[in-house]
């Protein structure tokens, strides 16, 4: 039984059906405590991305309730979504970097939105970049970076605001094993300082190596329960 005070994410009988009839998620229920590190596994199309989208309210559940920080996100107004997202760092497979801005500007974006002063922005961006090992790439444009470096910029941006929750969808998707392991180590480090981490991946080897909790999805359904 999870102590309610520390439950960060709770899915309660959640289903998501897209127009066209496809049921991406079916009666999914689980709880994630603050400070946990959880792997979301399953084949392509199993519903991993959909599940993450529901957490950041990019989509709303067709049935059931989704709670983040005790807040029923299915019911919240449009206006309440930005503050929620500001406390969640997201890393997606296709980076979502702005190619006409420098690495610095890309990583600084969440801080600018949050209204930080110029000097503080600089401090935090450099701290995030050093964590991912890209300090010397500050003034570079993303187009000049390798796939792995672009991914790391995405991670830096996701953590620069020190969010409580970090969501990563296939963060090692197109990286070689060595790089993948490094990225995973980063996530593990973030988790060790208290960040709740959820990683969707179908790299089962990485999952087994870290021996963390695993939520297994199969065709929209949770297969194993803790």
């Amino acid at each position: 039984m999870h102590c309610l005070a520390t439950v960060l994410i709770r899915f309660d009988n959640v289903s998501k059906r897209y127009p066209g009839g496809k049921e991406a998620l079916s009666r999914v229920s689980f709880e994630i405590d603050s400070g946990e590190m959880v792997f979301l596994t399953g084949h392509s199309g199993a519903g991993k991305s959909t599940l993450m989208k529901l957490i950041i309210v990019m989509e709303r559940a067709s049935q059931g309730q989704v709670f983040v920080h005790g807040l029923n996100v299915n019911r919240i107004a449009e206006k309440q979504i930005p503050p929620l997202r500001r406390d969640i760092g997201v890393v997606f497979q296709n980076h979502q970097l702005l190619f006409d801005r420098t690495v610095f500007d890309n990583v600084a974006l969440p801080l600018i939105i949050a209204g930080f002063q110029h000097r503080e922005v600089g401090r935090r961006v450099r701290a995030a970049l050093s964590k991912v090992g890209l300090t010397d790439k500050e003034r570079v444009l993303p187009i000049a970076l390798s796939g792995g470096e672009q991914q790391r910029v995405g991670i830096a941006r996701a953590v620069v605001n020190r969010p409580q929750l970090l969501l990563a969808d296939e963060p090692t998707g197109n990286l070689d094993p060595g790089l993948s392991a490094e990225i995973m180590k980063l996530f593990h480090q973030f988790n060790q300082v208290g960040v709740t981490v959820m990683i969707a991946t179908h790299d089962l080897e990485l999952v087994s190596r870290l021996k963390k909790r695993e939520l297994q999805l199969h065709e929209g359904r949770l297969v194993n329960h803790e």
Partner: protein
Amino acid sequence: MALLANWVTSAMTWMVLGIALALPVFLYLVLLNIVALSGDFDGNPRISIYLQQDATASETEQALRLVRDHPDTQEVKLITPDEALADFQARSGFGDVLNSLERNPLPPVIELAPRNTEPYALRQRIVEIEAQPFVDLVVVDLAWIERLFAFVSFGERVAWALTLILSLGVLLVVGNTIRLAIESRRTEIEVVKLVGGTDNFVRRPFLYLGFWYGLGGAITAWILVQTCLQFLAGPVELIAQSYQDDYSLQGLSVMNSIGLCLAGSALGILGAAFAVSKHLHTFSAAMVAEG
């Protein structure tokens, strides 16, 4: 956002907006000048009584007395044929031609300023005077002025209609340009929303852009109008001088210029606001690949 980096688009937009704003302003100035010119005539209508050309001096004297003694008469003035000729020579520039004439073709004129200037009373008075035997022609300036003011009112209506239509045009042009700007920044907007940017945060740069387009358009309009005025000022002064008048073309006052800039900026922000409210909602920050 370095949205003004594309100078060509900005310049073209400013030109279009400038033309749209310049047209009603220019029409307004034309009307302003017409009203100023016609201000030489005071509001009081004058009845000009043209006597028969061959009226003798005593007949003229008699006519004058009759008119003067009428209770409705406020002021009377007689212009003798000689005085009329001299005045005509001085003003018209036909002096040489007139000198070659054998006799003075001009009749005596009695200028009458009536007390009762009501249109109905005036018409009555005119009918009365026309009935007199020695009167050849009665001319009333009133009709002329009424017609002039009617045209000016019409012109003002046209100016307002034009202003409304062109303001709508400005809104549409700004709205469309902003829409294109939004489309071209689509990725950026989606990322900002993903990272938790509020709608206002996304909206603000586009409103600023609308403001600059509107202000730039107003300034361009001001330049266009001033250029046209410069173009016209010379000939207008020449015409005025030939009428013994030292009239010079009235331009845009400081207040009007500031008003123009404010109007342009307001229209710009408004147009941008419409475009933003219409097109920002079609974004849903949905970029994640199905996994």
